């Protein structure tokens, strides 16, 4: 069964460093998303991506964040200068139409 895969499963980084979280969406899907879940809180929408551009983003997705689909298969989330409060589980998702399918998540720990 096709699935969304995310790497790495756990990323530890120093505050102020740049991180890139990687995702391989399901191959025939057209819509791509990043969500995050801070420990103990709800899953929050960050950004959606369609037709090679951002289609929607939340107030969380500020200038520190960017997304890219560099090669037609990967979908990346870059955080330029990480802050302690960026520590969370980051989930990538993709959809064709209807429901979104999520990856297993990347746990980002900023120290």
């Amino acid at each position, binding site marked *: 069964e096709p699935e*969304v895969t*995310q790497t790495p499963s756990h990323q530890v980084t120093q505050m102020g460093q740049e991180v890139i979280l990687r995702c391989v969406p399901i191959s025939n899907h*057209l*819509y791509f*998303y990043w*969500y995050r879940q801070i420990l103990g*809180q*709800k*899953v*929050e*929408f960050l950004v*959606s*991506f*369609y*037709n090679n551009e951002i*289609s*929607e983003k*939340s107030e969380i997705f500020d200038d520190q964040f960017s997304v890219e689909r560099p090669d037609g298969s990967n979908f990346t989330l870059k955080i330029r200068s990480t802050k302690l409060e960026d520590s969370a589980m980051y*989930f990538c*998702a993709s*959809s064709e139409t*209807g*429901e*979104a*399918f*999520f*990856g*297993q*998540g990347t*746990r980002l720990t900023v120290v």
Partner: protein
Amino acid sequence: DQQVKQNSPSLSVQEGRISILNCDYTNSMFDYFLWYKKYPAEGPTFLISISSIKDKNEDGRFTVFLNKSAKHLSLHIVPSQPGDSAVYFCAAILSSDSGYALNFGKGTSLLVTP
């Protein structure tokens, strides 16, 4: 601004009984609702959905009911099994040509005891 609310953070049910998870929403323009199940350290897994034009959708042991006038939906699991123990998230979307953002509730942790 919490557009999707799950007011019960946890629920405990005996195996074989019915589990009822509730969800309320504030935006009457939502046109699609979904339930996701999440185990610790895993991504949310899609469970069942319902379009706003329907009031019930059933898939095996899982049934979702939608009451648009009350802006309320519920997920029924019958019979509940220990493997159903997980966090259940209600989500709602406004669909558009450019995709959509899932608005999640805070989740309800279901524990099914033997």
